[in-house]
C-alpha cells in the first residue's frame, strides 16, 4: 500500500473524494493556488439563509491536496457561512488524523478556497 506518510483517512478521501464537481451559477466561487506550484483548487457553494446547502470542488494537486479539498467540503456542508469562515488548516488536518509536515500547505489551500468562496458569496449578497 502507498505510504508517503499519509493517514488512513487521507488515503480514503483521496480514493473516494466527496463532493467532486461544479455547481452552475453558484452563490459563491473561490479559486486558490497555482499550477506552477503544483496545487490549484476551485470551490463552489450554494447558500440558503447563510447556510451552506451544497458544496463542490475540483483540485489539481497531490494526494493531500485532493484529500483536504474533499474533507473541507464535508466539514462545511450545512454550516453557517460565518462558522465556515473560521475553519482553519489545522481543523482540516486534524479531521484527517494529521498530515505530514511538508504537506500542511495543501490543507491551508483547501480552507482558503472555501473562505474565498464565502467572501464571494458575501460580496454578491451585499452588491
Amino acid at each position, binding site marked *: *500500500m*502507498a505510504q508517503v506518510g499519509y493517514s488512513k483517512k487521507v488515503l480514503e478521501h483521496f480514493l473516494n473524494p466527496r463532493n*467532486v464537481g461544479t455547481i452552475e451559477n453558484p452563490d459563491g466561487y473561490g479559486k486558490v493556488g497555482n499550477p506552477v*506550484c503544483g*496545487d490549484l*483548487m476551485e470551490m463552489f457553494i450554494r447558500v440558503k439563509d447563510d447556510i451552506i446547502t451544497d458544496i463542490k470542488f475540483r483540485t489539481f*494537486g*497531490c494526494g*493531500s491536496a485532493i484529500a483536504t479539498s474533499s474533507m473541507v467540503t464535508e466539514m462545511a456542508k450545512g454550516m453557517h457561512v460565518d462558522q465556515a469562515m473560521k475553519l482553519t488548516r489545522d481543523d482540516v488536518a486534524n479531521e484527517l488524523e494529521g498530515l505530514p509536515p511538508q504537506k500542511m500547505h495543501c490543507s491551508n489551500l483547501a480552507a482558503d478556497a472555501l473562505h474565498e468562496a464565502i467572501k464571494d458569496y458575501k460580496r454578491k449578497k451585499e452588491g
Partner: protein
Amino acid sequence: MEKIYLDHASAMSVDPRVLEFAKQYLKEDFGNPSSLHSVGLTAKRAIEDARKKVAELINAENETCILITGGATESNNLAIKGTALRNIGKGKKVAASAIEHISVLNPMKELQKSGFELTIIPVDSTGLVESEKLNDILTKDTTLTSIMYANNEIGTIEPIKKISEIVHKKGLYLHVDATAAAGRIPIDVQNEGIDLLTLSSNDMYGPQGAGALYIKPGIKLQSILPGGGQERGLRSGTENLFAVAGMGEAARIAKDEMEQEKKRLEEIRDKLISEILKIDKSYLTGHPTQRLPHHASFRFSGIEGESILLNMDMIYNIQVSTGSACSSKTLEPSHVLLAIGLKHEEAHGSMVLTLGRANKVEQVPMITKAVKETVERLRKLSPL
C-alpha cells in the same frame, strides 16, 4: 491483485543467485580483508574477485582500476572532490551537465563554496548534451567534467564517446556517472575514453551498500574519507564484504545476460510507450530512441505526479515514480525535467516506469489500463 513493480531505478531486489553466492560472507567467511590470517585472506580474495568481475563488466584495463565504495553517492563524491582537490594545480573549475544526479551536483556546489567555479552544461529538449556547445563552454582550467552515461529520470543515453573526445582535446578529465546504465547496456571505458566511472551494486541486482569507482591508470585523487587506508588510501573503512562480493557476482550475471535481457526489456518498453502515448495529452520525456532499455517516462497535462503514484499503487498495486515537487523532500520539481525545458506545471505531471527482470510483456495491457484509468480519474477531479 498481483504486484507489478515498475520502480527499478529506485531500488531492486537482490538476484537470488547473487544472494546464494554472497551469503557465505555473512556466515562462515565473515573475515576482515585487512586481517593477515587465513580467515582474512579468504575475505580479501572475495574482494579481489569482485573487483575483477566489475572490471570485466566495463572493460577496464585491469582490476586495480576498480575502487570499491559504499555506493554511487560515495563514488560520485570521491570522483568529483577527490579529483578536483588533488589536481588543483590545473585549475579551479568543474563542469557538469544540468541533468546530473544530485550526488554529482551537490559535491560540485560544495566545491563552489570553497572557491571553485562551476559550469553547468545545458541539454536539449530530449536530454542530450549538445556536444558542439560543450566545446565552447569548457576551458583548459576545468579540471573535471561530469556527464552521466544515461539519465535515471528520462532514460536518455548520452553520446559519451563523442563527449570524451571533446573533453580530452582540451586536456581535461571526464567523469561518467553510469549508475543508471551499468549492467543494462554495454560500457567500454577504454574505447569510450572514460577517465572515471561510477556504478552501483543495487542498480544491477546486487545488495545495497556497495558501489565502485573506475579510475583510469595514472589519474591521481585525494582521499575524502581518511582512516585505516583501505582501497589505496582513497576510501578508508572495512569493506562491506557481503555487499561487495554480491556486487561482483551481480556484475558477472549482468554481463552474461545483457544482450538477451536488453532485447527483452526493449520490447516491453516500446510496447508501453506506444500504448501509453495513445492517452490524450500524454508526452514522452527524454529521447525517443537513444534511451535505456528498461526506461519509459511520460508526462500528462492537467494532473499531478504524486496523485498518479498514489492512485497506481493503491488501486492497481503498481509501483511507479514521479519527478513531481509534491513527492520530493524539497517541494521543488525535478531539476532534470526543468533542464529539458518543461515548465513547472508540466514537470508536476510526470511518471517514470523502470522495468526489471520480473516484468513480462504480458503485463503491458494491465499497466496501460491502469495508467489510462488513473489519468482519467485524476483529470475528472482537476479544474485544468
